[in-house]
């Protein structure tokens, strides 16, 4: 306030005080827990009891959701369009498989190691996306994704090549909870990791760091002019996103006891983009809503047209863009914000 030397009159200072109160209130409101957040987690638990025969697809949703939420940090917050996010997912999947195969069968350890490994790859490759335009970023992320797929393919002695990795079975979680045949434990495990991951990213979203990411996305030139060190922030965000993408990959490995080279396939990077676009970017839960919708639609399509569901996914993408995905994904804003009704603005 020292910039503003003459804040002396009574009316000025009282209106300033009123402004401060309102500002504090508005800021608290920003990060308040929304109605739909509670619904999501209640539904996740309820599904466990109500849909015991659907554990596998629910698990798939939880994994895809974590993957998509991690991409949201890069795309929805920092505004970086990545075509190679599956590089981190796939790396995490392989690392978790190799851990279980050669070292420790305990899943949480594998999960953490996979997250760290992917994070390291994220950190290293983040420097490649700092320069250039959207196009060069697309290219580099795509290139990194393809390179990882090629590495996995070539290092068959380690990764099993085209056959993938199998022959391992994850041990009990933390030495206590054995995976069961119906995938119930696996589901709870994945939902647990998704919950923790989402909560961590949620904290990040509402921190000054999260705000600065959105500023970089909104207007990079101006964000630099308010002293935001854009590159550093992007490196950090990209690395964190890579950690969670790696963990999502690890979850897939651990719940299926198999790693297929498909974890690095290009279509996965495209799928996860689609997931986010369906659910909406920039508020994290878009990844979760999108994963639910996407998986259900894909499941339904692969039943009615097992070979050509890709066509309809493509059609969905085209229609989504033509209609205007902003308009579509704005539906979240119409959800009630909290339980009590009226709220001053």
């Amino acid at each position: 306030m020292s910039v503003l030397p003459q804040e002396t009159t009574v009316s000025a200072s009282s209106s300033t005080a009123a402004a401060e109160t309102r500002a504090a209130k508005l800021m608290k409101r920003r990060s308040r827990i929304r109605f739909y957040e509670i619904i999501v987690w209640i539904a996740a638990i309820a599904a466990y009891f109500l849909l015991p025969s659907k554990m596998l697809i629910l698990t798939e949703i939880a994994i895809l959701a974590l993957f998509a939420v991690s991409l949201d940090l890069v795309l929805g917050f920092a505004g970086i369009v990545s075509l190679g996010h599956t590089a981190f997912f796939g790396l995490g999947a392989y690392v978790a498989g190799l851990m279980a195969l050669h070292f420790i069968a305990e899943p949480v350890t594998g999960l953490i190691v996979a997250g760290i490994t992917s994070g390291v790859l994220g950190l290293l490759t983040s420097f490649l996306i700092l320069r250039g335009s959207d196009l060069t970023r697309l290219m580099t992320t795509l290139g990194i994704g393809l390179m990882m797929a090629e590495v996995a393919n070539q290092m068959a002695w380690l990764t099993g090549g085209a056959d993938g990795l199998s022959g391992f079975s994850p041990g009990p979680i933390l030495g206590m909870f054995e995976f069961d045949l119906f995938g119930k434990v696996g589901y709870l495990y994945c939902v647990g990791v998704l919950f923790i991951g989402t909560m961590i990213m949620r904290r990040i979203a509402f921190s000054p760091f999260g705000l600065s990411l959105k500023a970089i996305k909104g207007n990079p030139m101006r964000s630099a002019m308010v002293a935001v060190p854009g590159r550093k922030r992007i490196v950090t965000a990209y690395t964190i996103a890579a950690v969670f993408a790696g963990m999502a990959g690890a979850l897939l490995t651990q719940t299926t006891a198999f790693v297929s080279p498909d974890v690095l396939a290009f279509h996965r990077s495209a799928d996860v983009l689609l997931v986010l676009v369906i659910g909406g970017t920039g508020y994290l839960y878009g990844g979760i809503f999108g994963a639910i919708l996407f998986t259900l639609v894909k499941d339904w399509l692969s039943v009615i047209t097992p070979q050509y569901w890709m066509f309809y996914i493509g059609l969905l993408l085209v229609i989504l863009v033509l209609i205007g995905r902003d308009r579509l994904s704005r539906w979240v804003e119409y959800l009630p914000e909290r339980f009590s009704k009226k709220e001053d603005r």
Partner: protein
Amino acid sequence: MLTILFDGIAYGMLLFILACGLTVTLGLMNFINLAHGAFAMAGGYVTVVMMNRYGISFYWCLPAAFIVSALIGLVLERTLYQWLYQASHLDQVLFSIGIVFMAIAATDYFMGGQQQLINLPPELSGRMDVFGVGIGRYRLFTIIICAVLAVALQLILSKTRFGSRLRAAVDDRRVAMGLGINVPLVFALTFAFGSGLAGLGGAMGAEILGLDPNFPLKFMIYFLIVVSVGGTSTVSGPFLAALLLGIADVAGKYYVPAIGPFVIYALMIVMLIVRPNGLFSRGGR
């Protein structure tokens, strides 16, 4: 050694023809069209169907591939693409990935998922020996056609009225409109022409690159490399980039087969870091 160089040049020339339409849409119209390979694939399949089902001569197939792909391009541009010129890059990416997926699934549905083979006319198949260098006749044919096309392209862009209109339309849409240039028409024709060239490339490349429904995805990265490394301000930039890529790829696969594809990805990433605006772009900006 020289044979590899020669094959690499043929491959690179082909890549240039395939990608140069993308140079225009991407570089000049600023549209990230990841579906460019789908137009090339269309040309390839036109050739396959005409030759294998109806026994039409290969030489007739090439112009037909051009025309069919150009028409598809024209129709799609008018109905879909034109609405997205102003859209965000993310939208363009999603949209064109959607087109790719549809093209792949539709091709698979109609033509099956197997590799398509064509029988080249006898005078184009086999090798001949020139000063001890084994030269594939078809590759020589490819080089000649592509070189002619590259020169023609350069002339069209720099010498004709259409070229100057295109450049004007791209430089400043509004000013060009004010000058009475029908910008949407120029864009549509350019897009169609670029798609046609891709189709031609796809037809000629069926022999060298192979052809199956995954073609658009498999070669997407190659096209993007040509454009992003070559830059978009000239015809010669992408041309050189395509040659370099072709030679590097063929040589890489021959000498270090284990890490073949690796070489080009690594090369691309290094180039993008060193010269984010393209290898041959005029610096500054």
